[in-house]
């Protein structure tokens, strides 16, 4: 077999045409031709190393927040979180992961007028978050030179942010200041500009007054709903903190700024969704 013939049959053979075994004349050629032998070895190595790349990256936590928000908006989430005060028959509880069985869903009683009135502040807060974030992000000074030093984002793997591992609530100032202030977590060094490093170094942030008030209002919908909102709020606050720190170090990174905007939008959406449920 010649080198040209080897190259011709290689695509078929490399993909297991004969269960990984090569024809005898092919093997014989490889034994006496280091060039072809190296080629075959290299191509097999590339194929096997490529498989390691599958499922090697983790999406940001905001992806789930967006998905959940969309599912709620489309009515695909028909959660079991019914206000405790609204359940007429106290013996009926919709379990979280019980086997499928008929469940009687009592008619939910709307929140009392007092709570509805208190919850109305959520709407302007949600709007203010969006406006403030748009203002800050669009008014970031344009860099003279691209400062992004991180490797291609595809290769970074930010620490996974899950409800079980996210830090406590990020301090969020009054709505008009929310996007302007950037909460610098303790212990974050000035070096390093990868989101993963920032996430690892971030100390537990303190909950903001707005977030605490938000959660106290959401509590009227029941403990499990509160827990859901709390975990989503934690996730989105962690995302904001993480991305803000990255943007501060890399002001020229337009993608990061967009991510920060998206994260604020998610937070505003959370507030809005809660408002819609309470009203």
């Amino acid at each position, binding site marked *: 077999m010649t*080198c040209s013939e080897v*190259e011709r049959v*290689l*695509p*078929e053979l*490399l*993909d297991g045409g004969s269960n990984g075994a090569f024809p005898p004349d092919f093997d014989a050629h490889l034994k006496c031709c280091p*060039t072809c032998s*190296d*080629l075959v*070895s*290299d*191509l097999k*190595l*590339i*194929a096997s*190393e*490529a*498989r*390691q*790349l*599958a*499922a*090697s*990256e*983790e*999406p*940001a936590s*905001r*992806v*789930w927040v*967006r*998905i*959940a928000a*969309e*599912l*709620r908006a*489309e009515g*695909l*989430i*028909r*959660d*079991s979180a019914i206000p405790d005060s609204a359940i007429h028959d106290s013996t009926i509880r919709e379990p*979280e*992961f019980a*086997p*499928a069985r008929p469940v009687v869903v009592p008619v939910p009683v709307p929140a009392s007028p007092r709570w509805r009135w208190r919850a109305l502040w959520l709407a302007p807060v949600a709007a203010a978050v969006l406006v403030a974030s748009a203002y800050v992000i669009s008014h970031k000074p344009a860099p003279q030179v691209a400062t992004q030093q991180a*490797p*291609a*984002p*595809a*290769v970074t793997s930010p620490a996974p942010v*899950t409800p*079980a591992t996210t830090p406590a609530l990020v301090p969020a100032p009054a709505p008009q200041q929310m996007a302007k202030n950037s909460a610098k977590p303790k212990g974050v060094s000035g070096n390093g500009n990868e989101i993963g490093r920032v996430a690892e170094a971030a100390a537990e942030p303190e909950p903001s007054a707005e977030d605490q008030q938000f959660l106290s209002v959401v509590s009227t919908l029941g403990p499990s709903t509160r827990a*859901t909102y709390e975990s989503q709020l934690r996730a989105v606050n962690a995302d904001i903190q993480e991305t803000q720190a990255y943007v501060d170090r890399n002001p020229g990174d337009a*993608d990061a700024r*967009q*991510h920060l905007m998206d994260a604020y939008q998610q937070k505003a959406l959370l507030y809005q969704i809660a408002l819609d449920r309470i009203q």
Partner: protein
Amino acid sequence: MTDPKHGITEAEAIEQAKQGHEAAFEVLYHLHKRRVYSLCLRMVSNPAQAEDLAQEAFLQLFRKISTFRGESAFSTWLHRMTVNVVLMQLRKKGLPVVSLEETLESEDEAPRKEFGTKDLKLTGSVDRLQLQRAIDRLPPGYKTVFVLHDVEGFEHNEIAQMVGCSIGNSKSQLHKARLKLREYLKFMRAEKAKTG
């Protein structure tokens, strides 16, 4: 597959998701998010776009979850849906998915096998980071087939059906993609050796 946090199986989560339980959706998301996102990222090489595509793939899946009857593996269903979402996005942007023209490229452009030259052999030392960068440099058609076959494990008949080409074309594109990657990787190693 069991979610360690909630202690429920994927099958249980699917049934609960059909009833609209948010936590069940979340379980399914966390079980498959890495595979879906990684696939999107490999195909578009842009984290923001990859997030959008992953989000769309999951949303399409969850909208149709009531129709899932378990005839095939859930992950296979999700995987194919993800590929369709990505390919649709590439087509919308007018980017070639698999181009027949690439099989007719000129001799000057086709990766050459270098006879008789002393190449830096790759065996035993493929840097994952460099491999990722090399994949990002591949032309769209080569990248699609390479990612689907070597990274994600689809067979050529599946790839041919998904991207609308022949099985022979898929095999040819894959081989050329691997040859190109070999050249890129050797170049990167040579550059690295120069700079020290």
